[in-house]
């Protein structure tokens, strides 16, 4: 803990070694976060790069209160949100339709890997992916998501429902079939 504090202080002073260590310490986790918010690895790399540049730029303002990892993670999410706002301010569509999705077996849950799920997230349309991430992983409610993404609460709800529907459908389609084949 003390080491991390010193690392943060040295990084704020612009020491290259400290910054490199801090990057090594946090980059794998943060790359995982960036991957969830991106359509592919290239976009995640861009976000990670931009995020760490911001971390080193703003690290002097970190007050050593609360989790540093949480602080860095919030920067990564903000970078993803900024990129989204810049590229996807569009389509004020209210989509409140109910989606029929097939149910999936509990056995799928144990068999499916994190990488497989990440691939499914990448395939989501950008806004669905963003809403799903903010709701499921950041624990935001629809009001907060609507504010962050400059959309209505209804749109946030419908986007989440649609995201879940697409994901569930794909999970069942891809992994359910594999399961069936094995069991056949």
């Amino acid at each position, binding site marked *: 803990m003390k080491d991390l504090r010193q690392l943060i202080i040295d990084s704020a002073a612009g020491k290259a070694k400290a910054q490199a260590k801090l990057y090594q310490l946090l980059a794998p986790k943060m790359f995982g976060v960036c991957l969830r918010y991106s359509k592919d690895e290239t976009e995640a790399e861009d976000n990670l790069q931009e995020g760490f540049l911001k971390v080193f730029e703003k690290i002097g303002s970190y007050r050593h209160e609360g989790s540093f990892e949480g602080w860095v993670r919030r920067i990564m999410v903000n970078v993803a949100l900024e990129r989204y706002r810049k590229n996807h301010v569009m389509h004020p569509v209210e989509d409140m339709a109910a989606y029929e999705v097939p149910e999936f077996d509990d056995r799928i849950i144990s068999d499916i890997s994190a990488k497989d*799920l990440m691939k499914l997230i990448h395939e989501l349309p950008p806004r669905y992916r963003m809403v799903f991430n903010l709701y499921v992983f950041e624990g935001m409610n629809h009001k907060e998501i609507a504010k962050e993404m400059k959309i209505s609460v209804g749109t946030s709800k419908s986007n989440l429902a649609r995201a879940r529907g697409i994901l569930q459908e794909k999970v069942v389609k891809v992994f359910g079939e594999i399961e069936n084949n094995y069991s056949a």
Partner: protein
Amino acid sequence: MIKDNEKMDELFRSKLEGFEQDPPSYVWDRIREQQAGKRRNVFFLYLKGTGVAAAVLLAFILGWQWQLDRQEEIPTLMSEKQEIVAPNQQAEGQDQAAAAVEELTAEAQVAESKQPELIERETEAKPVVREKQIEPLVAAARNVTQQVTQDEIAREQESFSLLNLLDIQLDEVFPEENQLAAINQKKITTNEALLSSVDQSRIQENARLLAANREAKQSGSWQVGAMVTPVYAISNNSQSNNYARDMAIANNNSDLNLGGGISVEYKTASKWSVQSGVYYSKLEQNSSNQPYRAENIYADAAPPSSDIQDELAYFNTAVAVRSGEMLMNTAAGVVALDNLPSNAKLSNSFESPSSQDGILLTATEFEQAFDYIEIPLIVRYQLLDAAFDIQLLGGINTSVLVANNAYARSQFGREHIGETRDMNTFNYSTSIGVGVGYGITNKISIHVEPQLKYFLGSLNDNPDVSFKPYTIGVSTGLSYHF
């Protein structure tokens, strides 16, 4: 349903919450590179600021010096004129006084016995006369020695001899020192009247010629000119991976345009000169479609064969439709299309995972044109001053974006379709070059000046795009010296 949702959320949360993956090592290299770039930018910003400040200071000093020279020249001439007049007036006044002295001398001869006393009085009076009258005149004469002619010097000397003589006689006639001083004071105030109008005009003419001569030698000169400049711009751009993936292909690395303008130059007495002016210049970026995106149209089905893809190559300029706008990535920045080109159709893929969710079906090529007004501040150093003069030049330019247009070129001709987003209004560049001039007449000369110009920052503010062309221009024109 709710249970299913919770199950879904939990599935993803449990598997991905603590998900870790090592990023490629080049990400860290890119971070370091960008940090260094930011430091460089700060340095360039500092350099830019220093350059501008130095240029403003230089311009101010030169302007102030020039103004000072002009102001000082005239009062100096006036005082010189007065100083020139003083001995002449003295001489003429003393001519008249000499006549009176001659008369008085005759009377004085009557009292020859008083000679020793006269000598004695002379020795007493002289210091008074020299201190109060002669010394200022000697000083004045010393000041104008370099300006007056030999003739004037002779007259001056004559005046002094007469003055000396006059002093003696006056001293004899007016023994009281304060009386002598009063007379002399009166003489000085009436000197103007004693100077003939011909002499006065001659003195003024001499002073004018002297001033003109001095000004030509010491205060430098001005030069105005008009230039025509063919500019060859070489594209220098880079984009983030994400941006470049959906970018229309940049199909030219260079373009040739015509610019020009008027220049004003101030040449100092030394080999240095400072030039500014107003110039017009133009930059372009041309783009075409992305053939390899043809297969993306068929993302969900089997992609067509390569032959078909080639045929459909033009059916695939990626665009984004956001808030009713159509945006297209190009090497110079994002083009916002106001109008769809005549031969284009828009296809939209709302649930596309790509940020560019639209496809422009067109065989059109795109052209972005940027018009700038430039205000340079160039410092020149004269290397050779002969029949051909050669100068080294370097400086900083401020380019102001005055027109920003995007066009589509197809069989329907050239259509205006919109503009490029995020273009900076003010841009700074440095330039270096060589100037060769040839004097056609004393006042008019012809110039040929090759110059290399490099923009200090990207012309586009979009963080995903760096658009910094450098240009080679050959300015040709005429200038007038005065």
